[in-house]
């Protein structure tokens, strides 16, 4: 009967069955006691208090979440083939720049150097400095985009090759490049 009483309490029964049960409850003491006890049971359970969290609860959760996040987002890292391609692309780019610099008409540079007044040697030094600064900059760019070591290595190898093949025009090239950069 308890099950019937519970379904009655749940409001799950069709109207005629409800009426039937209500009639029975008014006549049967056992069942009406049963219903009263069921209701008291529910009242007792519902008298359980909510329990308060420790005061630092939210702070602890946010702290845990913050450290989760810093673990999960160590910069969107680029897979190594992409890093290598970026490095080689960077090296090719710098090789192109150097080659272009070398192909510039040197007479213009002669004028530039006289206009700017520093001696050819000074211009050479300046050019070397600037070229090296450019290398460092490219290296940093590659580093920011992908695998640092691999990218830098690729830049260095290609530039070394370019420098070797351009041979004795190197100093002029550096000077020109320096002037262009200025």
């Amino acid at each position, binding site marked *: 009967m308890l099950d019937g009483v519970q379904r009655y309490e749940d409001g799950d029964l069709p109207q005629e069955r409800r009426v039937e049960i209500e009639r029975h409850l008014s006549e049967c003491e056992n069942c009406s006691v049963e219903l009263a006890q069921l209701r008291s049971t529910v009242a007792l359970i519902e008298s*359980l208090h909510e329990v308060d969290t420790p005061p630092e*609860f939210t702070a602890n959760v946010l702290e845990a979440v913050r450290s989760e996040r810093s673990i999960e987002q160590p910069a969107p890292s680029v897979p190594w083939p992409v890093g290598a391609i970026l490095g080689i692309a960077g090296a090719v780019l710098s090789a192109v720049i150097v080659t272009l610099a070398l192909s510039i008409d040197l007479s213009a540079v002669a004028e530039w150097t006289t206009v700017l007044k520093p001696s050819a040697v000074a211009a050479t030094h300046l050019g070397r400095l600037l070229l090296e600064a450019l290398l460092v900059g490219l290296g940093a760019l590659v580093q920011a985009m992908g695998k640092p070591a691999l990218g830098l290595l690729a830049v260095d190898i290609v530039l070394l090759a370019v420098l070797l093949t351009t041979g004795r025009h190197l100093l002029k090239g550096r000077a020109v490049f320096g002037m262009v950069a200025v």
Partner: protein
Amino acid sequence: MPCEPDDVLIQRTQVGDLTAFGTIVDRYRTRIYSLAYRMLGDRDRADDVAQEVFIRVYKALGTYRMCGTFSTWLFAIAVNVCTDALRQKPVATTPIDSSEGGPAHESGGTDPHSAYQRSEMQERIQNAMGRLPDQQRLIIALIHLQGHSYEEVAQIMRQPIGTVKSHAHRARARLKTLLAPCMEEDTR
């Protein structure tokens, strides 16, 4: 911002606003913690479990799509974390008639004697709950302590509503027996 809807706070959290997530945690922490405490019978474990619930919620927010209500989703996660915890270690109950060390926090009541009686009664009810199978205790807690309907509990637990109801009926029948002595005291 007196009372932003859950979904607004969720969207803000999804774009990296931790303050919004803090508001969510503040909004639900008592309910989740209470559920965990009633399920585990231990405050320290309830604290760990409740924290774990919110951490899992945060991690899952990336894939959370607003279908249904946030609270149903939240409680479903809470049910999973509680169930995992109970698998590792069952609910803590004290032997019947043991009256040492009542619940750690009791609100209201200035008369120490009646406060003690109330707190003893709370412990007896909690203990009776602890004697139910986990599923039944969970359903009773969700319905009678958290105020969810059968439909909501069925969604939260991903069980047919008929199963939820029959668990609830069995649980109430068992609690009625377990709590009969309390009711006699009550009516005296």
